[in-house]
């Protein structure tokens, strides 16, 4: 017997003896003691210690249970990490305490089930963990902004990526995360490398609208996209390789298809080439989808695609119209503007076949800089067509500024009910972009007061966001700390006479002279008046409304600390005759319980006629004394009201109202949760004067943060 085997033998003998001692002989009844001991002896030293410690502990409660533990623990270590084994033992002991020996033994015996449940709890990659990351990641890869959402099937409709709610195919969490990521990338690749271009979707639905051919098309596209990704993203391609194995038979099938469809791996291959091949592949056995590959639902794509094409076409025409008008040097909307020839040239930047292109817009042969929002629009259209179709560039008919522009109607029902608790009625003009004139006295606005709600909401919000409020207050404090005249500085704007006199006195007495002889202003006194204009339209119903109210509560707390003068008004209305603003807090009102109740009482009302609200609240703001005046709008979408106040008309009136404010020295800023805000907010508020918040829950935090950034 060699030394090693001898050592082993002794070791096992010792383990067997110890364990039998712990279990008081109960282990012997488990038959295969030899086997159990061998496996425990094979564990690492610290795991063995773990087994010892627990065997002893369990034995104090029950010998039989300890014996079961010893007999299954090696299996448990095979299946799980140490923390998992600990959970398993904990569960068994808890069951023993509550339900008795029989159930506890069941838990120990069924270690496999436990391990599976444990694994899916701990190694899976869930949607909630990954969604924020994925949204950023996919946006970074390129192309139009895609939403990510959970669905039974994995697919894309070219607006959203639908993903399973969790992935737990692999034992390691990192692997599942990567798989989840690759699933999203594969769907993204379909939108980026033209799987769902207009021409493809049309033909697919016309010629191959059945499950079989679509499945073949899906496989062929997998092959083509694989090649595209390998060209552009070597890092991703490596990962796809690792995760792309099914089984030997499946891999062989894929290899076969890849060889047959070799033309699809060329750089210039398109989804139309895949369509050409579908018939030839129909009879072949279908390779199984790899774990990251999803289904295809051409019908869903078509729905999203057509809606988007319409939307983007009119958006582009509107944008082009503006470019034309700018180019006309002020002769806005003149006949000449219509006749100018607009061309969009595209240059494929890296020849990748993706939609990554540079745009150059020329008007009558003259190169014009492309505005940022238009680039996104053009990019998205390129993704759908692979080019900018000519009909997208045709000028709009004269007078037809936009397809959703309706003639403005005055109020039709006219049922004024003056019994509301209004404090006054005002009339305002409105900018009519069709006539290029103001409609004088067109809007009638009433200032109402929000009926008080339950103050408990405020307390609950403060409780809920306690940590957040602390950090907001801290960052606001830092702002405050700066605003003081500091004396006795080593350096500063002016000489600190007191310090200087003292210093000379010191010198006269033969002492050392201080070098701290200056005064300096860290920052001048804050002198800010801010008006918060809160969207109370019907669309805020639900959690948007909650988020708005929470945001206001936190903001008030923070603003009280800063001492900035502030007012809060809601706005809504229906038609030009019934525009309403709702007073929540006036400038000279302090943050009292009544204000808190009003914040809590904010409820969604009707529509969003923004122009008139801005004019009214802007006037209130201009009447206050402050060096800096700021109007901040919290909104959830475009201006829209009953009777044609929407689309271009609404946006132009709002823009005009904001320009009027700006001339009066008021800064305007907009915080919105509308994902499409890029299309119209830069035009209304200016390119840097708005913030889009992608998650409603973040509103309370973001609003305070934005306010701080704005005013420091």
């Amino acid at each position: 017997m060699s030394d090693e085997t001898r050592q082993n033998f002794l070791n096992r003998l010792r383990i067997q003896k110890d364990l039998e001692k712990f279990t008081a002989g109960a282990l012997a009844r488990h038959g295969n003691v030899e086997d159990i001991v061998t496996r425990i002896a094979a564990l690492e030293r610290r795991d063995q210690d773990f087994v010892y410690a627990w065997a002893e502990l369990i034995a104090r409660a029950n010998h039989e249970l300890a014996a079961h533990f010893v007999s299954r623990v090696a299996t448990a270590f095979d299946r799980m990490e140490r923390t998992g084994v600990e959970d398993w033992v904990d569960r068994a002991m808890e069951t023993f305490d509550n339900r008795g020996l029989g159930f506890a033994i069941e838990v120990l015996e069924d270690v496999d089930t436990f391990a599976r449940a444990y694994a899916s709890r701990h190694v899976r990659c869930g949607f909630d963990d990954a969604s924020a990351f994925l949204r950023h990641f996919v946006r970074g890869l390129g192309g139009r902004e895609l939403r990510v959402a959970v669905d039974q099937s994995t697919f894309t409709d070219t607006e959203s990526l639908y993903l399973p709610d969790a992935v737990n195919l692999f034992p390691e969490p990192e692997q599942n995360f990567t798989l989840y990521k690759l699933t999203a990338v594969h769907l993204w690749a379909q939108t980026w490398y033209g799987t769902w271009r207009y021409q493809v979707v049309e033909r697919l639905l016309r010629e191959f609208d059945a499950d079989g051919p679509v499945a073949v098309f899906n496989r062929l596209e997998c092959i083509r996209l694989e090649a595209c990704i390998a060209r552009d993203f070597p890092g991703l391609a490596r990962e796809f390789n690792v995760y792309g194995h099914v089984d030997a038979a499946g891999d062989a099938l894929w290899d076969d298809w890849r060889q047959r469809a070799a033309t699809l791996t060329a750089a210039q291959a398109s989804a139309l080439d895949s369509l050409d091949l579908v018939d030839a592949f129909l009879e072949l056995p279908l390779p199984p989808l790899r774990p990251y590959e999803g289904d295809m639902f051409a019908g869903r794509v078509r729905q999203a695609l057509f809606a988007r094409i319409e939307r983007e076409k009119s958006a582009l025409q509107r944008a082009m119209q503006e470019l034309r008008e700018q180019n006309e040097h002020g002769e806005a909307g003149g006949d000449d503007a219509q006749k100018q020839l607009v061309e969009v040239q595209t240059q494929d930047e890296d020849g990748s076949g993706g939609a990554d292109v540079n745009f150059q817009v020329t008007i009558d042969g003259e190169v014009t800089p492309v505005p940022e929002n238009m680039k996104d629009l053009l990019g998205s259209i390129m993704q759908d067509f692979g080019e900018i179709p000519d009909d997208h560039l045709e000028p709009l008919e004269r007078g037809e500024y936009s397809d959703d522009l309706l003639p403005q109607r005055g109020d039709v029902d006219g049922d004024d009910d003056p019994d509301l608790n209004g404090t006054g009625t005002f009339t305002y003009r409105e900018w009519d972009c069709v006539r290029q004139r103001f409609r004088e006295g067109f809007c009638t606005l009433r200032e109402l007061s929000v009926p008080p709600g339950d103050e408990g909401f405020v307390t609950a919000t403060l409780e809920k966001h306690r940590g957040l409020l602390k950090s907001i207050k801290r960052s606001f404090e830092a702002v405050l700390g700066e605003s003081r005249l500091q004396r006795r500085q080593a350096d500063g704007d002016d000489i600190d006479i007191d310090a200087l006199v003292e210093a000379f006195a010191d010198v006269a007495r033969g002492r050392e002279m201080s070098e701290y002889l200056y005064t300096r202003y860290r920052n001048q006194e804050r002198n800010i008046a801010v008006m918060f204009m809160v969207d109370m339209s019907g669309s805020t119903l639900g959690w948007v409304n909650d988020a708005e109210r929470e945001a206001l509560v936190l903001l008030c707390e923070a603003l009280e600390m800063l001492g900035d003068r502030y007012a809060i008004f809601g706005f809504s209305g229906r038609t030009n005759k019934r525009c309403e603003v709702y007073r929540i807090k006036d400038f000279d009102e302090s943050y009292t319980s009544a204000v808190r109740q009003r914040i809590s009482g904010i409820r969604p009302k009707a529509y969003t006629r923004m122009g008139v609200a801005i004019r009214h609240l802007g006037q209130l703001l201009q009447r206050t004394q402050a060096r800096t005046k700021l109007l901040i709008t919290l909104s959830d979408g475009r201006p829209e009201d009953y009777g044609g106040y929407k689309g271009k008309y609404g946006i132009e009136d709002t823009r005009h109202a904001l320009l009027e404010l700006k001339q009066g020295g008021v800064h305007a800023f907009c915080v919105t949760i509308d994902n499409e805000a890029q299309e119209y907010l830069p035009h209304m508020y200016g390119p840097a004067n708005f913030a889009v918040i992608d998650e409603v829950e973040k509103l309370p935090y973001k609003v305070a943060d934005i306010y701080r950034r704005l005013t420091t």
Partner: protein
Amino acid sequence: MSTPAIHTAQSTITDEPYYEPVADEIDVFTAAYRNKLPVLLKGPTGCGKTRFVEYMAWRLARPMVTVACHDDLTASDLIGRYLVRGGETVWVDGPLTSAVRNGSICYLDEVVEARKDTSVVIHPLCDDRRLLPIEKLGEVLAAPPEFCLVISYNPGYQSVLKDLKQSTRQRFVALEFGYPKAEVEQTIIEKESGVDAASARQLIKFGHMTRNLKGSGLDEGASTRLLVNAAKLMHEGISPVIATDTAVAQALTDDEDMLQAVHELSRSIF
């Protein structure tokens, strides 16, 4: 402490700074300089504004004074002040005054950061008077023809208190800077860092990805400067993913999800 700023390097640039023109900015600047017009450079951080001024200073063979403006920068920081020295007061010129005296190019970087009272000294210098009043000395300096004032500012900066006033901006010839085109940016990265063309191309692709994220989670995408930094690390043998993580991702954001997204974007290319 702003005292050292008073002695800011007034340097004559002897070696040609590396600068890759993106459009006709060199001609415009030269023409403005000849006509004694002040210049305003607009653009996001790290797109080459400072380098451009250095290059122009070299090209026009003028010494250059750079002042990085901060929110405590006052008019006296620019003009100068009396210091107490050995029981007496001594006047010390500020960077702007010495630039005017020497006929240098004075570059006020991120001028919106400076205190509002700085506009008092900038305004008379920037119209046809070209005068610098030094109130405390009771002196008015007339700027020599060689003197040129250049200011820069980032219009994407969201603070209502830090916006350039119309009265200020309407005195300048404005040059807008964006990130350079892919080919130009590639040349810049190669020349600045010494990496090969393939790595530079990958870095640019990565840069574009981060710029896609501007407005959807990032305030700014990776600037050319950050990409050059990453390239320099790569040239030293640091692996590309670590180089982009440290030189770009961490510099752009602290948000966990965003860091991870940028990290994975980098991994998808390299």
